[in-house]
């Protein structure tokens, strides 16, 4: 059986698609990987304030080599800058911003997202020899909205949008929306609702790459 040709989004296109949905005025934490790229695609002039868990509110892009500052890094331990209006806080205050519901949005990568909004993104098995959680659990449980951006399937083609996560959970029922290289999906009380698909892709072809059952979202459903 042959499928109609379709064009998956690149990593940059996925990041750009997320950025399109972030309105002016939001306070946003971006995780490591594709989420970090999102900042590059927020249109100039739209004021969005980026938070880094290590105590930076108002994080800017990587510095020019001559402005490199070893004392100013992000959660991925890369050198960054501070925007005009930015501030430094200590770790307990930084996580008060997270846990206290002050962040409008957190965007994370994941191994799996379940149709009930569970997210697994920190350990690949319960016997992981030395797992590292960092701030993922705090961000997943604490931000006002959690969006996930990830490839729709594993490299081997196994679905990552699942009925129930098989990897150890990071948080229960937290994910609001998922952006993949194939689709944008909302997590609803009735499971995944497809908001949009990559050009040329059919719902049948998307379903074939998804473990959890899918349905198209009603036009009025897509609230952020």
């Amino acid at each position, binding site marked *: 059986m042959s499928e109609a040709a379709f064009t998956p989004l690149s990593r940059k296109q996925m990041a750009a698609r997320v950025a399109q949905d972030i309105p002016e005025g939001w306070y946003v934490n971006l995780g490591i990987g594709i989420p970090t790229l999102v900042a590059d695609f927020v249109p100039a002039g739209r004021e969005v304030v980026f938070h*880094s*868990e*290590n*105590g*930076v509110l108002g994080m800017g892009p990587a510095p020019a080599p001559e402005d490199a*500052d*070893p*004392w*100013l*890094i992000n959660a991925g*331990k890369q050198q960054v800058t*501070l925007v005009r209006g930015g501030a*430094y*806080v*200590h*770790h*307990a205050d*930084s*996580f008060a911003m*997270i*846990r206290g519901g002050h962040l409008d949005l957190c965007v994370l990568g994941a191994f799996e997202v379940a149709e009930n909004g569970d997210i697994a993104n920190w*350990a690949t098995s*319960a016997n992981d*020899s*030395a*797992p*590292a*959680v*960092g*701030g*993922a*659990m*705090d961000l997943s*449980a*604490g931000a006002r909205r959690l969006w996930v951006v990830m490839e729709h399937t594993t490299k081997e083609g196994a679905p990552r949008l699942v009925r129930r996560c098989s990897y*150890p*959970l*990071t*948080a*229960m029922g937290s994910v609001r929306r998922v952006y993949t290289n194939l689709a944008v999906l909302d997590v609803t009380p009735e499971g995944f609702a497809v908001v949009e698909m990559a050009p040329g892709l059919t719902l049948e072809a998307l379903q074939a790459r998804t473990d959890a059952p899918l349905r198209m979202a009603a036009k009025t459903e897509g609230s952020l």
Partner: protein
Amino acid sequence: MINKIVRTMADAMQGIADGATVLVGGFGSVGQPDALIDGLIEQGAKDLTIVANNAGTGRTGLARLMELGRVRKIICSYPRSAGSVVFEELYKAGKLELEIVPQGTLAERMRAAGAGVPAFYTPTGYGTLLAEGKPTAEFNGKPCVLETALHGDVALVQGLAGDRWGNLTYRRSGRNFNPVMAMAAALTIVQVDELAPLGTLDPEQVVTPGIFVDRVIHIPQAA
């Protein structure tokens, strides 16, 4: 006259006992008190519990302390990072006990210790492996996990400037865990880049007031 400034590393490290819980500031290498860690290596205390966000990289600093067999247990959020070879060797060999704590819970457990709060409920980690065996309760419909305060016998802290009362400022993202660790330990030892005469630090700029600090040693950083 109150004078918390000590002149030698031996004076700074005096009295750290075997079996101590030592809080070590920093996020990766930024804000990490490297000179004090070297001082602790020299001082010789063993059977230590180390609380730090990361578990050291390369074979110097925290990694060296672990490699020398002086660390019994490490409590951290993100032990595995590029170059954490010593941690991985020791952990795999069963020679190091590991307690993984979500990063915000780690910070809050120390803040609570410093603030006299013995335990607190948090939504972080509920329903995950890291909450197994911990009491839970629901507040306003939100299920939460009970976490306990994390006290240090010693905190090793890096500040930017400090005075003889122990008032401290920090440098950019080097602040990170340092202020909460300074609050949470019975003995707080600080390395500062600059010594400030008393009264010259702007009171509005002091992040850690001297009440939380016991010893200050001047370790000028390479620019």
